[in-house]
Every structure is written in C-alpha cells, then in structure tokens.
C-alpha cells in the first residue's frame, strides 16, 4: 500500500500511509485507538475506498470496489467483532458469503471443511449451533472462513482481545503454520508482547500516519510503546490546590462477567473523591464498559461492591442511584441517552423524570420541564430549531451538548462520563470539561472514560489505566506521565 489517505468529513483518518508486507510473513500493525489501524485494513480489504493512494498485491496494482472483490483477489479480514451468526450451524457459518452457487451441497462442503480444519489441527462439530462456540472457537471458525475462501492475505483485527493466554498461544501456533505455507498474515493489535514474540516486522501508526516501520528483532517494546503514544511528555497541569473531599464513588474488589462469560472486570478497586476528576485510560474493550455498566447499575457484579456517597449501592436499582445524584453522560447517546423521535422538551427529563424539581408528586411538572429544557439547550449553546422538534433534528455534536448539559446541570454528585466529548470540536470539548470541573469544585466527583489519552491528560486530575479487565495505577508521582501510562495501556499483565 502506497500513500493511502482517507478522510471522513473533515477528519483525516489516514494521511499518506504506506505499508509494505512481505509475502509469507506475520506483520504487525500497532497504534492507539483512532490511530487509523482499522481504517487502513478496511481500505486494504475493500470495505472503504481510499481517497488517495494505491494497493499492490504481488506486484499488481489492485483497486477493490467492495470486500467481495477483495475476497476474490485473496484478501480476507477477521474483524474485532466476529461475523458469526449465532443460530445456524458452524458449517453454515463457514460457507456464509462463499456458498459457490444457488444450491448448497452440504455433504461436499462438510468434507472440504473437515479437510481444511484437519490441516490446521482444529476440530469442529459442524452441525452444532454456532452460538455454542467459545470465543476461541469462534476465532478459529473465522480463520477457517478465510481459508475456505482461499485467502492469501489474511488480516486479523485484535484477534486475541477475547482469548485466554493459552488460546492466544494456540492461535499464534496456527498463524505460524499459515505463514509457513506461504500465506501472509497482517495482525492488528495493541499488545506489544504478541508483536515481540510472534511477528517479523511491525508498523506503528499514530494519528493516521505511519510513524515507524521496524524489524521486530531490531526494536524493543519500550521503543514501540514510545512510538505509539508519541514520545513527547505532556507537562502536568498544576495540581488542584484543594484537598479531595470524602469519597463519592467507592468501587471495591469488583468482578464482572462480560457478555461472553469471561471475566471482563477483575477485582477492581477505585475511589473517586469529591472535587476529583479521575480519568480511565486504556484501549477500547479493556473493561471500561463493564465498569461503567456496573456503576450505573445495568449489570450485576459477580462479586465486590459499589458505593456512592458513603452508602453501599450494590444490588440497588439504577433509579436509586440516580436519586442519589448519579448523572450519566452515556457512551452511545442514541442507544442509551435519548429517544430520537421525542421532542427536546421530552428528552430533557429523560433520566430525570423522578428528579424532584421536574415533578409534582406522580405528575410531570410540564411548566418547569419546559423551563428546564430551555436551560439545558442554553448551557452549551445547543443549536436547535425549536424545543418542540424531535431530538433527531439536532446534529450529532449538538445532541452531545444537550445530553452533557442535562447531566451536568441537574445537581450531579457523581458524574460518569463515557467519551463525553464524542463528536465535539475543540471548543465544545473544552466547554464540557470546564463544566465538569466546575461541578467538581462544588463538591461532585467525576469519572471519565476516554480512548483519547491526550484528552484525559489535559483535563483530569489523575489517571488510572484499564488493561484486560484490571485496573492499574501509574507509579507514585507519575500519575500524568504519558510514557508510563502508555506502557500500562499496552503491556501484558
């Protein structure tokens, strides 16, 4: 790939990236979230068209209109979220997208499937429902899907994110075997030990640019970590002069199982005190979401406790927690924070419908609610066409302003913000963080999850890092040391 660029609106996702992968090798692509790894791979296998740049495979210049064309040319990708359909059998999943004709000969398919699997040393019950597969089994099936399509170039996006260490080792064993057969494997990952142990070459992406390309034998994981986060240290902001107050959030030995049954959160301890803005850094999928859900009260923890304002709220409903002053700036506002077809006024009380100022007993105080809606849109200057219009009439950034103002203006005691600046420009971002800071100065505590390390470094008092479900603290005195935090984000436990 030479000089590949890709823009989404005004955002430059890839800026003149070149990537050369030698046939028959295992090549790693590393970088932070948003560095452009996945975008680059999607361009390679035809899901997105590059704005600039060319792709050559075995010397021939190729241009794919869609991923089907890429598949025919022998390029395949296993994405981070597996494309396994739960109800059909393993065999049906295997041939999905490459059935080879209108009529499926299942017996023949099974024979071929078994022979491919045997060569890889995998064993599958072809007639079992795919929903019964373990994460490792699903990953293996995904790899077989590529082999079924005779892919020569195989892209794996974060393949070990859901796997146990033993399964990961087995996976790399299989990948080695594929490479030995002359196939080419591109591994997108943030786990440096994997790179150091298994890959031949590594390319580092940062902010949409390829910043380094190294033989793995000639580099160290320290050098890579530095390349990934950008090397430069951010001067720590002057620490707040005031002493943090009593704990507003007290998470103790919290263990939560994820959707796939794995321990998504392992024995996490975390305290957020009044007056503090605490940031959680880490690559996506390290357990931040499960922690956020456990604090909000959407999932029940396996063990451990969640305390708010000194009271144990484990097992209490979300409604009770909201009543105690919990305010949420949700991760996915469309799914979790608004009803798009409702008016701005109706949305302004979502999550606050039982908040005393907006009701009279069991009735909604409609007059106060209208005034409240006005205050919500005024807070961050949300541009709107009328409070009675549906929320979907707002642009994404204005919806985010609306949702943030709703949480921050309603007397929060504990603010949980998941990517609070999502979709906002620099000024909007600064506005929202300033408001969070102001609430904390008035005695609230705030916990911020973001995948943008710079944003956290700039706005939080201290940072902790989530990595594979565990919470890690940077060493004493280096709470805002970019280097130390970068290493905690990507290193093995």
């Amino acid at each position, binding site marked *: 790939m030479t000089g590949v660029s890709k823009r989404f609106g005004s955002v430059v996702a890839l800026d003149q990236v070149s990537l050369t992968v030698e046939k028959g090798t295992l090549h790693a692509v590393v970088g932070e979230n948003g560095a452009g790894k996945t975008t680059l791979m999607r361009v390679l296998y035809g899901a997105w068209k590059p704005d600039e740049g060319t792709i050559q495979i075995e010397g021939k210049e190729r241009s794919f209109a869609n991923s089907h064309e890429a598949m025919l040319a022998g390029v395949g990708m296993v994405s981070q979220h597996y494309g396994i359909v739960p109800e059909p059998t393993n065999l049906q999943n295997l041939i999905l997208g490459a059935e080879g004709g209108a009529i499926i000969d299942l017996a023949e398919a099974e024979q071929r499937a078994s022979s491919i699997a045997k060569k890889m040393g995998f064993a599958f019950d072809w007639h079992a429902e795919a929903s019964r597969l373990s994460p490792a089994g699903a990953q293996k099936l995904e790899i077989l899907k590529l082999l079924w399509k005779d892919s020569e170039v195989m892209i794996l996006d974060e393949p070990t994110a859901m796997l146990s260490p033993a399964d990961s080792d087995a996976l790399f064993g299989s990948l080695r075997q594929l490479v030995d057969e002359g196939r080419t494997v591109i591994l997108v990952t943030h786990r440096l030990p994997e790179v150091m142990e298994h890959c031949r070459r590594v390319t580092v992406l940062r902010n949409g640019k390829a910043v380094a390309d190294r033989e793995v034998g000639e580099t160290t994981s320290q050098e890579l970590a530095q390349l990934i986060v950008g090397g430069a240290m951010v001067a720590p902001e002057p620490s707040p002069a005031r002493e943090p107050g009593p704990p507003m959030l007290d998470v103790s030995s919290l263990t939560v199982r994820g959707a796939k049954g794995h321990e998504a959160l392992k024995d996490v301890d975390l305290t957020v005190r009044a007056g503090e803005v605490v940031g959680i850094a880490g690559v996506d999928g390290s357990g931040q979401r499960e922690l956020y859900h456990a604090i*909000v009260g*959407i999932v029940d923890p396996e063990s451990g406790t969640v305390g708010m304002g000194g009271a144990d709220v484990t097992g209490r*409903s*979300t*409604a*009770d*927690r*909201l*009543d105690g002053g919990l305010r*949420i700036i*949700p991760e996915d506002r469309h*799914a*979790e*924070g*608004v*009803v*798009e*077809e*409702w008016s701005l006024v*109706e949305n302004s*009380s*979502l*999550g*606050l*419908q*039982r908040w005393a100022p907006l*009701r009279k007993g*069991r*009735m*909604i105080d*409609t007059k106060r609610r209208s005034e409240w809606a006005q205050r919500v849109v005024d807070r961050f200057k949300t*541009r*709107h*066409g009328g409070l009675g*219009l*549906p929320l*979907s*009439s*707002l*642009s994404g950034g*204005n919806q985010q302003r609306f949702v943030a103002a709703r949480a921050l203006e309603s007397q929060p005691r504990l603010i949980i913000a998941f990517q609070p600046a999502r979709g906002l420009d620099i000024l909007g971002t600064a506005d929202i963080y300033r408001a969070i800071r102001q609430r904390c100065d008035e005695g609230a505590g705030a916990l911020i999850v973001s995948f943008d390390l710079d944003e956290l470094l700039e706005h939080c008092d201290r940072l902790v890092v989530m990595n594979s479900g565990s919470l890690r603290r940077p060493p004493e005195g280096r709470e805002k040391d970019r280097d130390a935090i970068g290493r905690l984000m990507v290193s093995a436990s």
Partner: protein
Amino acid sequence: MNWKLVALIFAALAIVAGSLMLTKATPMTAATEMFKGSLGSPRAISGSIREMTPLLIAGLAVFIALRAGLFNIGVEGQLLVGAFTCAVVALRAPGPTGAMLGAVSGMAAGALWAYPAGLIKAYRNGHEVITTIMLNNIAGYLTSYLVAGPFIAPPGDYPATATLGEATRLGNFLEGPVAVNWAIPIGLLATAGLALWLRYTVSGYELLAVGANPTAARFSGVDPARVVVRSMLASGAIAGLAGALQVLAYEHRFYADFSPGYGFDALGVALLAGGSAFGVIPSAFVFGALSRGGIRLAIYEVPKGIVGVILGLMILIAAAIRYRKVKTVA
C-alpha cells in the same frame, strides 16, 4: 406535493373499485349503499356506534401495549375471557352490583390472560406475538367448551349462558332516534384517562420511554421488564373490559363464537390511531361505520371482506403519511 403518496392513494382506490367491478355492484352503488348502511339514518348511526364500542375499548388495549413497544395480538382472547367471566359473575349477583362485579372480574380475567405473555416477554424474551396468538387459541376453545358444557343455559340446545336480567344490563345514556349506550361514555372516559395518564404522569412517561428506546430507559432508571409486565396487565384488563361491556351493554349473555374478531380489528384501530390515545376514537368510529355499512353490501353479493380491504389500505396510507423523515436543522 408528495407524488408517491398521491400515487399510493390512487392505487388504493383503484384496487377497491376494481374488486367491486368483479361483483354485481358498481363502485358508485357500493359507496352509496355503504354510506346508507352506516350513516344514512338514525338507525344506521346507532348501529355504527354500537359496532364502534368494542373496537374503541379493545383499540385502547392494543394502543397502550403498542406505546410500551408490545404488539398485543392477544386482545381477542383477553376480550373473550373477560366477556365470559363477566357473564358468569353478573348472572350470580343480579342488579347494578352484578354489573359492577361483572365488569371488574372481566377486567381481572383479561389481565390474567395477558399476564403470562408479559412475564415470558419480560424475563424469557419470548415474543409476545407468538405467546398471545397461542393464548388466543386457548381462550377461544376454553370459553367455547365452558359455555357448551358447565355453564350452558337450560335446556341446553344452544351453547350460551343464561340471559342477564334487565336490572343487570347497562342502559342507554342517550335515548331517542340515535341511541347511545352507557358503554360509549365509559369508553370515551377511558380514552381521556389513558391519554392524560401517558402525557402527564411520571409512570406514563416511563412506559413511553420503554416503548421508544428500552436501552435508554434502563439508563434512565426505568426497569423495562417491570414496565412490560405492567403494560401487558393493563392492556389485558382493558381488553377484558371491552368484552365485559359488550355483554353488559349489548349481548346480555355469553355464547360460543362471541366475538367476530373485535380483538383483531382493534389492531387496525390502534395502528390507524397514531400517537395519541384520542386518535383511537375516530379510528374506532371509521372501523365501526365501515363494518356496519358492509352488511348492506351483501344485498349486492359483494363479500363483506371488501371492508377489510378498505381498512387495510387506509392503514397503509396512514403509515405512509406518518413516517416521514425529519430533517436536521443544525
């Protein structure tokens, strides 16, 4: 001008006219006769209002479930058990007390019939359409059996309960050429109550939130499972009331094949009603009038099914008008 919509309306009219051409009637006579049969005389209007009654109340039952994101196809079955229970109870306690007890027990029976579907939806994620269809079948056969066996009125040559005494029946609210039974003001009151409850109470707001976006509702401190169960109970109770009032106001007994499909027509009523409970009133009236008018078409050997065709097309057009995309302003 929305050309697609205009084309759709013309296509709909063409289908209706075309299917009428296949029979002995011209579209013009058919339309005239249907009008005469439904609105042409005080008698016809009274008939339309009578047809409207169960559709209005059962329509509310479908409507409240729909607002909570549930498609309660089981209103038919809930209406049947409500009507049956009401008849049996009211026969044992004569007078106004009997009517009152009958209505309340009919509502309880309807709610009970909807309860399993609510529980299965809320805690086992079993789709309410499937479960309520099953419950409809059970309700239909069970009430038919009960009224043909244990509860049959002597001498027992027709599967029906005994007839309610005059004092237990629900009388007319308006007498005169256009008679209106008390069931109608009760239905209108229920409509207003439901509309205001949804609009002005916290629990109504939470029900709407669950229907519109269950995930956002959870993050807003609402337990969707609990709301689903309660909405199903409320929907079933209203459906039961529809059946009970049909017994108390018009039929005065329960018999096999009691409902000609009120519960199913109510689905159309609620869909046509749109976002407000008040919309159920005109919607139920249109359904009632068309169904009343359709009876006259039989004279011209036009099958009554044509009414269903017209109603179906109306729902399609209403849906096409309603679901327009909203533009982003900022």
